[in-house]
Structure formats: structure tokens, C-alpha cells
């Protein structure tokens, strides 16, 4: 460790650092404008110039490596004079039209003040540039305040990896420009706001909150969009969320965020919010049920709504048995709420018919990885992978749009550490730009592709035989099947050249550890489980399991879809993946959740057969086998495949209780509407894609008469128990929770993988990845070290199978569906956040230029897609992201614009996940 002298005082400092950072860490302030600890030093502003003994001229501290014995002076008279001159020169080109960001100090003015430079004397009196010169709805550009420190340019390049900002012209005319001098969005800006975050002067500010008053308080919480689990501060004034600001202490993301997290908060207090309980009029009048949506809503008290729901559910259970009721839990809600939903289903109603949207996204992952390793979650953390992986293989994940902050971290790994990135996706997704190898396999050929890679690896003896011998089983059976996938055949099935196959196999084999990432491109197939098993095979074959920088890493979609699975929001498991077929587990929960009737008898024990999946319960609601649905924060009309069929089923369902924050496409079919709250109005925890459990903290009071969802669930459960005259008698059978923290204590008591989780620990900064075995256990960031959860990792031989519906003469195009950066799932939240809608206002349908030309379709023209099941309308977006014959549509927009009107409910036989990614459609100008 070098010893240096600063202003005559000795300091011991870190090696491999620059003088500015060393001084900062020693508590000595050296002025600087262009420096930021997250960004590479630039040496542009020259404010940090210092005098160093032995150097003839002052040197920029940010560019000066520390050396032992260095003698530095930071505030000599000459330096101060020079700094004043620099500040004056900057002010000569600086025009201030007012500060729109009250709680962020302006570094330029701060140093002027410090050195006594009179700003009123030196600043420009007239603006040089238009104020607010860019139409981006999130980022406000005022070049009059720009001091050319290039922090925005470096932030865009080094943090977000997008390279939108650049420096153009020279001398007096120098200015920052987007792309080739166009608007930010035209320059492919992703509106993440990183440039704003790093701007020292307010030349770039957050447009939606420009001019907002100072917040009364800032509440650190976890984002409610995707599964990355970013933390940020909700800024609150007068019980309103006025903006979102970065929090440097956020464990996953630091100060970085994506456009939805940073700017998509307007939905929280949107006028559309459901503010009081409502029931259909026919229920109050005791009339027969009219067709869905015809009986008007009547606003009622909580008592009326909950009693009505409790009585009706109890009656249906009495008449048709508990399995006539099915529950959809919510990956948008907290762990505590999902636990209660699971307890409501199993203890109160007595059915395993509980599922949630994980069925539609990663049920095949959970099933497949369970079979291979015994645990169906991401094995490594993002920070671990971006720091330690030598190669990253992304297959079927549009990472930069769906998990933007993870996407930017992968870009950083490629830029900083030259990690070898391989991307395989039928669409040329944005992250492919950073890939060393991009494979455009035909949709639905993933098993063949991976088997082909493993064939090459085995042929060349590149496998990790020691790992396989020690830690895996069933290798020979697997090897036999892979033998059948030589490159010639695989190339024919997948459309990937043999050369690329070989190059990919070699890259994976020679760059270890390698981490595999995947998302819906792998899971949403009739071969979803096979795809996952094949990727698990690949990682075992290469010995990439249980090591830093490796692993299988399914990126979970919703903020808390991992938690909703963990909490037993699945038909086959109690919380913590304790199987409903395991007698010991049944016994445990029978005791813990026991209730007793007035006559002293206890209800029948839980049955040992898994309940219905969401893709089964909705069709069964259509046939009357399921008479009632209890839905928490889901919108199945939008998100289930074959939306028209879903509508028919919900129409036929006798009784639907929906707990929601907005009226939705599904609320049209509901009979009782219970207004829940957003993440800003309640306490709880979310578990992110890395199995990291994080706090959600209440920032504002619930809107109107709404109540936190866990309170509503507890209230409903108590009322049903009262109707049935049952008393909770088991150790964890009661429903009198004073807080969400108490629910978490109960979760910990009955869920081994959450045994050491408590709000108290999380609130004192514990970073917990499950399994957390007890209150002293520090969690498990990397799974399967030394041994797999199931003991030995099991190779499963897998074979390529064709998708259910392929293009034909009548429906000649292959449709694949997905999401886009600016919207979130069924769109209830993002379509109520104005800026997001400004940027992406319509259901765009991606079409390849060749197809567009053949059909005479122009960019932005209205087009119509039809499949055997329905139609979807949208605007053409002509782009080479898709290949000829492939069409991409999203499901963010309601009604006729919903891509799920087209999709097919063909299910994976094991996990029952629908094949959202492949169906045949016809394309016409509408």
C-alpha cells in the first residue's frame, strides 16, 4: 500500500487508484466536475489539477496514478487562481434559466461559490441554445447549462452501453449531440436516464419531475416492474409520489435504473384507480346472473363486499366441494400476500387449485431444473456472473428490453472485461449487437441447437469429464441421444450454419466459467421443459454448475414471480416447494394450519393430488367444473393464450372475485371487485430473479378506501372461516396479523428455505438469497456448490419435436409474441404512465422488409393479423430484427390489438405452459 503526502500530511492509500479517488477516500476534497467514481476518468475539466513535487506543471489528479512517496499540494495560491479562471471560462458559456431539480446540487455553482467566483458577473445573459431542445418525454436537454464534462457520454457508453451521446463540432462550437445529430429517441436512446443521473449541472434533467418541489421524505423500496429487483427512492410530498430517484445503496442496480422504473410511476395515483369495493347489482338484489358485464357495478362497503364473497364461496364449496373453486395468485404482489393466498386456498377453502402467471412464463423452468438439479431457480447472482463469467450464453431472452438493468450489466461485462457473449434468438434482439456470435435459429428448434453444440463438444472431448463423473448421473443415456445430432442435421433443422455451430461450441468449451441466461424464448414452447433440460445438460457437460460466473440463469419476468412460486402459489407445492404428494409435508401443514369446527371435529386432511394449473382452471371454468375463481392482481384475458377462448370461459364462470388496482379487461367478467393497492402503499417483500429477498416499504397512504392486499385476504379468510364456523387451532392457523412482518415470521416458521428471513433482518441491511436456513445463516447466493439439491445432477436425454402449429398455405407466417421495453405485460400500469405511452403508443407488429415489400405494406401502416383463433390489429414496424416469414407482436394493448387473440393454447405436457412463441398467422393490410 503506497504512502503519499497530501498537503504535508502522510496518508496510506489503495494501490491501483488515482490521486483524486485516493484523496477523496482520505477525506480530502479536491474540486472536480468531470469525474465520477462510476465512470472512467476523463481529465477534461482540469479543476482537479494539483501540484506534485517533481512535476513542472500542475497535473489532473483524476488522471494521476498514486505512487509511493508522492508529495501533493491541493490548494496552493496558484491552483486556486487557475481554478477561478477555469470556472469563469465555463460561466462565460453558461446560461441558467432556473433549477428544475431542487434536490440535486449544481456542481458548477457549488465550486463557484466555494472559490468566490461571482456567477452573476460571469454567466451569459442570453441562451445560446434552445432550452428543452429534445422531444424525449423523460429527458430534458438544456445545452445552455452544459459544461462539456462528458459524464453523460461516458454514462451512456459505460453504464447503459448504448453510446447515444457523443461530442460533436470543435472549439467554441463543441456540444453534446445524440447519435448523428438527431433527437434522442431517433438515436436509439432507451430513456434510462443514466445521463441525467450523472449530469453535474442540470443540463440534463428528468422531464416528468422538472420543477417538482422538494420531497418531504424519500422511501427506499423495490421496483414493481420486472424481476431484476432494482431499489430506488419514492419521493413523497403531501401523500403523493412526486418522483423516483436513484439510491446509491441499491444492492442490485446502484444508481442505475430503466425507463419504467425511473419514469413509469404515474399509474400509482392514476385517476382510474379502483377506490372502493364494488359488487354487481344482481348479487345485491338476489337475481340470477345476467351475461357478463351487463349488471351494473354498485359501490358498497368492505363488509358487504367481503361478506358477499365469503358467503358465496362457502356456498359453492358446500355444494360442489372445495375443488370447484380455483385461485389465481399474483406475481405482482408481495411474498406475504402470496403466502396468504396459498393459505386461503389450502387451509380455508381446502383446494390445491392455486396457480399464478409463472405458469405462463417459467413453469417449464421450475419443472425442468427441478428434474435436473432439484431446485428450479436462477443459480447465480447477476453481480457474480458479470464479474466472473468468461462467457455468457443468452438464448431466448431479449435481455436489454425485458430485464434492462441486467441487460446493461451484461453489456458492461462485454465492454469492460471482454466477456465472450453468444446470443441465440430467432429475433435479432438488441443485445445481439454486443455478441461475438449471434445465432438466428428457427423458432422452436432449441433442443436441436443445444444438442448439436453438445455433439460437437463431445466429439472433441471438450466436456468436463471429472465433473460429470463425480457429480452427475445418467450420462451414457444422454450421450447416446446427442450422438444423433451431428452438425449437418442440426444445421438443417435450425438454420444455423455448421461453422457457427462449431465456433459456438468451441467458444463455450474454451471460456469457462460460462453462464447461461434464458427467458421466454426457451420456456414458452410445447417443448419448454425439454428446452430447459437440454440447457441444464449443457451446463453439466461443461462443468459450469456450482461455480462463480456459471450456472443456469432463467430470468424471471415479474417483480415477484420468484416469490410467488416460493410461497406456494402453485398447485403442486406448499411454500418452499414442499410437495403436496409428500405425506410428511401434508402432515406438517395439517397440524400447522389446523382448524376446528364448533363440534370439535377438524376438516378433512389436505389431499395429496396436485391441483389445477391456470391453463387448466380457466378452461374448466368454461365447462362449469370450476364454479368460482378468486383472482388476485392478474389479467388472464390479456395474458392467457387464445384470448377469445379465455373470454368465453370467464363469461361462463359462475362467480369471480377479483382483487385489482385498476378496472381491467378481466374485471368486465368479475362479480366482486376488491380494490387493492400498489407497491407504494404497503409493506412486504419481493424476491427477485436472483432469489434475493428485498423489502417493499410503504411510502404513501392507500388511495381512497383501498386496503393493502394482505389485509383484504386475511379479512376474507376470517369471514369464510366464520361462515363455516371453524376456529383456527393449529400453530400457524390464525389470520390475526398486525403487520406484514408477522406474516413473514409465519412464512419463516413453515418454509425451510425462508427460515432465516425476517423484516427486521432485511431492514438492517441483510442481503439474503434463499435458501436462508436460520436467523444466523447469511443466505445462498450460488446454488449447487459441491452438491446438487437433489444429490446428483441428472442428465435427461432430449429429442427435437416440431411445434404444434407451423405456417401453412392459409396462415403462411410464423408469429412469435413478447414484450417491449416501454411497456409491461398487459399494460395496466404502463398504459397509465404518460411518457411511456408517448414513446410507444400503438401495438406495433414487426415485419421483415422483404415480407413488407411483397405484401405492399408501408412502415406504420395499419395491418391485420389473423390466426385460426382470432385477429389482432396493429401498426407495421418494418425491421430486420425479425427474419423473413417471422412476425413479432406484443400483448400490451387491449381488445383487438392484443397479440394473445392469435396465440394457441398448445401446452407443454409436463409444465402445461402454452406455446406463446409459435403459431401460424396470416398478414394483411387492414
Amino acid at each position, binding site marked *: 500500500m503506497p504512502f503519499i503526502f497530501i498537503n504535508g500530511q502522510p496518508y496510506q492509500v489503495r494501490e491501483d487508484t488515482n490521486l483524486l479517488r485516493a484523496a477523496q477516500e482520505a477525506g480530502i476534497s479536491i474540486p472536480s466536475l468531470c469525474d465520477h467514481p462510476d465512470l472512467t476518468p476523463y481529465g477534461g475539466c482540469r479543476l482537479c489539477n494539483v501540484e506534485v513535487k517533481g512535476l513542472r506543471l500542475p497535473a489532473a489528479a483524476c488522471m494521476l496514478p498514486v505512487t509511493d512517496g508522492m508529495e501533493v499540494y491541493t490548494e496552493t495560491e496558484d491552483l486556486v487562481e487557475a481554478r477561478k479562471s477555469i470556472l469563469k471560462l465555463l460561466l462565460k458559456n453558461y446560461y441558467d434559466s432556473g433549477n428544475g431539480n431542487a434536490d440535486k446540487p449544481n456542481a458548477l455553482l457549488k465550486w463557484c461559490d466555494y472559490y468566490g467566483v461571482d456567477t452573476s458577473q460571469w454567466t451569459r445573459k442570453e441562451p445560446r441554445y434552445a432550452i428543452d431542445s429534445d422531444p424525449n418525454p423523460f429527458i430534458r436537454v438544456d445545452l445552455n447549462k452544459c459544461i462539456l464534462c462528458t459524464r453523460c457520454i461516458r454514462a451512456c457508453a459505460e453504464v447503459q452501453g448504448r453510446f447515444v451521446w457523443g461530442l460533436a463540432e470543435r472549439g467554441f462550437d463543441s456540444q453534446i449531440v445524440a447519435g448523428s445529430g438527431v433527437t434522442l429517441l*431517433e438515436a436509439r436512446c432507451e430513456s434510462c436516464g443514466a445521463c441525467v443521473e450523472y449530469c453535474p449541472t442540470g443540463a440534463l434533467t428528468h422531464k416528468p419531475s422538472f420543477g417538482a418541489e422538494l420531497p418531504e421524505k424519500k422511501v427506499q423500496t423495490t421496483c414493481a416492474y420486472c424481476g431484476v429487483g432494482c431499489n430506488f427512492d419514492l419521493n413523497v410530498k403531501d401523500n403523493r409520489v412526486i418522483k423516483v430517484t436513484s439510491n446509491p445503496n441499491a444492492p442490485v442496480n446502484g444508481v442505475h435504473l430503466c425507463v419504467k422504473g425511473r419514469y413509469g410511476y404515474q399509474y400509482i395515483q392514476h385517476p382510474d384507480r379502483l377506490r372502493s369495493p364494488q359488487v354487481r347489482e344482481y348479487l345485491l338484489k338476489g337475481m340470477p346472473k345476467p351475461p357478463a358485464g351487463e349488471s351494473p357495478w354498485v359501490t358498497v362497503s368492505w363488509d358487504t363486499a367481503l361478506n358477499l364473497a365469503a358467503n358465496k364461496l362457502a356456498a359453492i364449496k358446500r355444494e360442489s366441494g372445495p375443488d370447484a373453486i380455483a385461485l389465481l395468485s399474483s406475481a405482482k404482489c408481495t411474498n406475504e400476500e402470496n403466502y396468504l393466498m396459498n393459505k386461503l386456498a389450502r387451509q380455508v377453502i381446502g383446494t390445491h387449485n392455486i396457480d399464478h402467471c409463472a405458469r405462463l412464463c417459467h413453469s417449464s423452468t421450475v419443472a425442468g431444473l427441478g428434474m435436473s438439479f432439484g431446485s428450479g431457480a436462477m443459480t447465480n447472482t447477476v453481480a457474480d456472473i458479470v464479474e466472473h463469467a468468461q462467457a455468457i450464453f443468452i438464448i431466448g431472452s431479449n435481455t436489454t428490453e425485458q430485464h434492462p438493468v441486467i441487460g446493461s450489466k451484461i453489456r458492461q461485462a462485454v465492454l469492460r472485461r471482454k466477456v465472450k457473449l453468444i446470443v441465440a434468438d430467432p429475433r435479432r434482439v438488441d443485445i445481439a449487437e454486443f455478441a461475438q456470435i449471434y445465432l438466428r435459429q428457427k423458432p422452436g428448434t432449441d433442443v436441436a441447437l443445444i444438442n448439436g453444440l453438445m455433439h460437437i463438444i463431445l466429439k472433441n472431448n471438450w466436456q468436463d469429464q471429472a465433473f460429470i463423473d463425480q457429480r452427475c448421473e445418467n450420462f451414457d443415456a444422454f450421450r447416446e441421444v446427442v450422438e444423433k445430432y451431428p452438425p449437418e442435421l442440426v444445421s438443417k433443422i435450425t438454420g444455423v450454419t455448421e461453422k457457427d455451430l462449431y465456433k459456438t461450441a468451441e467458444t463455450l468449451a474454451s471460456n469457462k466459467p460460462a453462464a447461461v441466461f434464458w427467458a421466454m424464448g426457451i420456456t414458452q414452447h410445447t417443448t419448454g421443459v425439454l428446452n430447459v433440460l437440454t440447457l441444464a445438460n449443457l451446463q453439466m457437460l461443461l462443468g459450469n454448475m456450482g461455480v462463480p460466473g456459471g450456472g443456469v440463469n432463467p430470468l424471471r419476468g415479474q417483480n415477484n414471480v420468484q416469490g410467488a412460486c416460493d410461497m406456494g402459489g402453485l398447485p403442486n407445492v406448499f411454500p418452499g416447494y414442499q410437495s403436496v404428494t409428500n405425506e410428511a409435508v401434508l402432515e406438517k401443514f395439517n397440524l400447522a394450519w389446523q382448524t376446528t369446527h364448533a363440534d370439535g371435529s377438524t376438516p378433512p386432511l389436505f389431499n395429496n393430488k396436485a391441483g389445477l394449473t391456470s391453463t387448466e382452471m380457466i378452461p374448466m371454468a368454461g365447462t362449469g367444473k370450476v364454479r368460482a375463481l378468486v383472482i388476485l392482481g392478474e389479467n388472464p384475458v390479456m395474458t392467457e393464450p387464445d384470448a377469445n377462448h379465455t373470454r368465453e370461459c370467464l363469461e361462463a364462470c359462475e362467480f369471480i372475485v377479483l382483487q385489482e388496482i385498476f378496472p381491467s379487461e378481466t374485471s368486465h367478467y368479475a362479480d366482486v371487485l376488491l380494490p387493492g393497492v400498489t407497491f407504494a402503499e404497503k409493506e412486504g417483500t419481493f424476491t427477485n430473479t436472483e432469489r434475493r429477498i428485498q423489502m417493499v416499504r410503504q411510502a404513501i397512504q392507500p388511495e381512497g378506501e383501498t386496503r393493502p392486499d394482505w389485509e383484504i385476504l386475511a379479512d376474507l379468510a376470517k369471514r369464510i372461516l366464520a361462515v363455516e364456523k371453524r376456529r383456527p387451532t393449529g400453530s400457524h392457523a390464525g389470520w390475526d396479523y398486525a403487520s406484514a412482518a408477522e406474516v413473514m415470521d409465519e412464512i419463516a416458521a413453515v418454509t425451510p428455505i425462508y427460515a432465516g428471513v425476517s423484516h427486521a433482518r432485511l431492514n438492517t441491511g441483510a442481503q439474503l438469497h434463499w435458501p436462508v436456513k436460520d436467523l444466523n445463516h447469511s443466505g445462498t447466493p450460488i446454488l449447487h456448490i459441491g452438491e446438487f439439491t437433489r444429490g446428483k445432477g441428472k442428465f435427461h436425454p432430449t429429442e427435437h419435436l416440431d411445434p404444434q402449429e407451423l405456417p401453412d398455405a392459409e396462415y403462411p407466417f410464423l408469429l412469435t409474441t413478447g414484450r417491449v421495453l416501454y411497456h409491461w405485460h398487459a399494460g395496466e400500469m404502463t398504459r397509465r404512465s404518460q411518457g411511456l405511452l408517448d414513446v410507444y403508443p400503438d401495438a406495433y407488429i414487426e415485419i421483415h422488409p422483404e415480407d413488407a415489400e411483397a405484401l405492399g405494406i408501408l412502415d406504420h401502416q395499419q395491418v391485420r393479423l389473423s390466426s385460426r383463433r382470432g385477429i389482432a390489429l396493429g401498426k407495421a414496424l418494418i425491421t430486420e430484427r425479425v427474419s423473413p416469414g417471422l412476425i413479432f407482436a406484443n400483448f400490451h394493448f387491449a381488445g383487438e390489438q392484443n397479440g394473445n387473440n392469435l396465440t394457441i393454447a398448445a401446452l407443454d405436457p409436463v409444465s402445461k405452459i402454452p406455446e406463446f412463441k409459435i403459431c401460424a398467422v396470416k398478414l394483411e393490410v387492414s
Partner: protein
Amino acid sequence: MATPNHSYALAAPTLKNLEKEYPLNVPEQKAIIDRILETYCDVPGGLMVILNEIQSRVGFISQPVQEYVARVLNVPVSAIHGVVTFYSFFTTEPRGDHTLKFCMGTACYVGGTPQLIQKAEQILGTKTGRTTPDGKITLEVCRCVGACSQAPVVVVDEQLYGRLRPSKLPALIREITKASSNSSGE
């Protein structure tokens, strides 16, 4: 709030989005650009050579060409735009048949370049950095050309004219235009 008028996330412009007369849509010119890119894309620091060649052989480096080069070289377009706008040799619009470059070095500036520019703009009815509507003459400013002893200096194409006074400009411009019509008649 203004609604941005753009195509969301168009990864890179497809050729179909470009104007007809742009070099990328003229097969001969595109062939030249492609040959340049092919020749120099793997040369370290090849960007400068490529831009130089395109400027010399195509005559200008328009926005779509910048984007095309960025895409082929896998370099951010913002970086290419930075280089193109930094060097006065590069232009983003077609130059006229002749270019008048006014030296803005200190000696020339003090010696009267601003007055010369003002006069030239007045005679030609165009602005510095632009080309006359007939495509004959482009006005530009440049950095010191190293002929300070003859300040103020104007460089016409490759030819240097020193100690120029605003009153002499009309004749000079007439001369250039005449030479131009002569040469175009050949």
C-alpha cells in the same frame, strides 16, 4: 408534451428509409463506399481512412452514410458523427464545384476575415457552411493554413489568395464562376 415522431427502436435504418439521391441509393456510389469499407474495416484506426476516402470519392458524408459506416464497423454513430464534425475537411452535405475557405487563424481574423465572409455571403446569397443554390460555390471557414504573412487568406479549392480585401471579392468570385462554366463546357 410533444409526441416524438419517430419509429420506435428501429435498430438501424434500412436502405428503404433513405432519400433517392443519397449515395447509398445510387448503386455506383454505394459500391464505392462498400469497397472502401471492405478495404479498411480491419485496419486499426481505419475509421479516419474510411471517412477520408468517402469524403474524397463521394464528396460528402451524410447522416445516413455515417449510420451505415457505424453499422458496418460496429462503432457508435455518435463517435463517427463526432469525428466528421470535428474535422473541417469532412462535410455532411455535398460541396459545390468550388469551395472558398476563409482562414480564421488569428492573423487572418484580425486582418479582416469577418468582413470578407460578410461580403461573400452577401454576393452569393448563402451562408458560411452552405452551398449556393446552383451548386457552384461552397463557403467555409478553416483553421490557420500557415500563410499568416499574407493575411487575410482565402483558399479557393487548392489555390491560395492572400491580402484579400472585400472590394476584390466580386472579381474573384466572377473568375471562379467563369472557370467553372468553362470547365463544365469541356
